Each structure stands twice: as C-alpha cells, then as structure tokens.
C-alpha cells in the first residue's frame, strides 16, 4: 500500500455550507424538452446542490400520471431533426421520430421519465406543480406523480427559490 502521507485528499466541500441552490422551470411537454431539465437536475443533486423543479404549462405532462409515460417528439419546425420540412408534418412522422429517439435513449440506458423522477426524488430533489396549470388542465394532486410535493402558485415558487440559480426550459 502507498504510504498514507502521499495521499491526495480532495476537499468535498462538506464543511462549507455553500447553500448552492438550482431551480429549473420545466415548461415544455415534449420528450426532447423534458429530458434537459431532468438530466441537469439529477447532475446538480449528484454535486450536492439543492434542487427544485417547477412544472408549468406544457411541462405539466412530465408529472401527469396519465401522460408522463407517453411524451412525444415532433420533428415539425425543428431544423435540427434533419428531416425535410415538407415531410415532417406527415401522418405517422411524430410516432416514428419518437420511436427513434426512444430507441437511441434506451441504447444509452437513459431512464424513462417516471424512472427519472424516481431517481431525482430518491436523491433529495423537490418537485413542485404549478397551480394555474393544474387549474387549466382540471388536475388534482392525485392525478400527479406521487413524488410531487405540492401544487403551488408562482409566487410561492419565487419565494422558496430565493438566492437560487434559475433555468427556464
């Protein structure tokens, strides 16, 4: 064994209360736009950063039990999908594009949306649902993923994320 005196001991910042906080507003409900928030949020938790995810507008689908497992990816209007613009709106294109995206994510062992939320909650992340979106969609707490802590209004979210770094997706 190498002598202990030669050991490089990194500081994991355990003793420093950095209080770093990240708040991510997830406002989109398509498969491709759901993942960035989940991936970044999960990475933040792994770095010991306090995380709050706020689901609003179309992003509500990410936490709606009946929809979260069936998010879609549409190539329409998305030049980065590299499909000729005239073909993108054809029937069946969305399900084909979704299927292809799902396949490449499965190959990388990226978890499904519900499984990702499980991982975030288990790592100590906080999930919040937007009050207005719940009202618009006529959804109650029981219609939402179990890990969602509460349905809150925008001002409560702003209040609880004081001093946080904020991302809007």
């Amino acid at each position: 064994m190498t002598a202990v005196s030669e050991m490089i001991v990194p500081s994991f910042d355990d003793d420093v209360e950095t209080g770093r906080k990240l708040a991510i507003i997830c406002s989109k409900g398509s498969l491709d736009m759901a993942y960035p928030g989940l991936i970044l949020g999960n990475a933040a938790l792994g770095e010991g950063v306090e995380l709050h995810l706020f689901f609003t507008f179309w992003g509500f689908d990410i936490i709606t039990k009946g929809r979260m497992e069936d998010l879609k990816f549409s190539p329409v209007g998305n030049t980065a999908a590299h499909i000729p613009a005239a073909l993108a709106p054809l029937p069946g294109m969305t399900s084909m594009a979704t299927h292809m995206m799902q396949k490449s994510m499965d190959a990388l062992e990226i978890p499904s949306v519900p499984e990702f939320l499980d991982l975030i909650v288990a790592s100590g992340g906080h999930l919040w649902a937007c009050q207005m979106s719940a009202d618009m969609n006529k959804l109650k707490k029981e219609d939402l993923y179990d890990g969602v802590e509460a349905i809150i209004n925008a001002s409560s979210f702003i209040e609880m994320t004081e001093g946080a770094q904020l991302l809007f997706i």
Partner: protein
Amino acid sequence: MTEYDQWDEDMGKALAEAIGVEMTDEHWKAIRFLREDFKVQGETPTIRRVSTAGGIDTKQLFVLFPKKPAKKMAYIAGLPKPHGCV
C-alpha cells in the same frame, strides 16, 4: 495512483477515513461493486448504475456517502470520477 492494481481494501479504508467516511459492510458493498464494474466496463459506474446494476438504493447512497456519492465512492475505490451523465 495510476494503476488499477495499486489499490487494495486497506488503501480504500485509509482514503475513506481521509474524507470522513467510516466504512461499514454496506459501504464496502458499493465500493466492491465499483471496483468490479470498472474492471468489466472500463469506466466508473454512475449513481444510477450503482443502484440499478449494483442493487443499492439511491437514497441509501446519499446516506452512506453524503452530498456527493459518485465522487466520494470513486475516490475511495481509487477510480476516476464517472463520465456518464445519468
């Protein structure tokens, strides 16, 4: 430490102590999984992989190796930090 075989469990224990982690059987289960998985896959497993393939609950990993489980486990196991995003 630059070679895989330079590490042994005594060293793991010393590294853990240096960062304030007292090793229990549960800690060792995670660290041994990291060592084995690295040998097979050629890269350090992420938190998710330790939980899905290694069978240790994510929540528990945050208890065993507080705040930054992936980096702390890699350090104790004498492996590079994980490259995977998830």
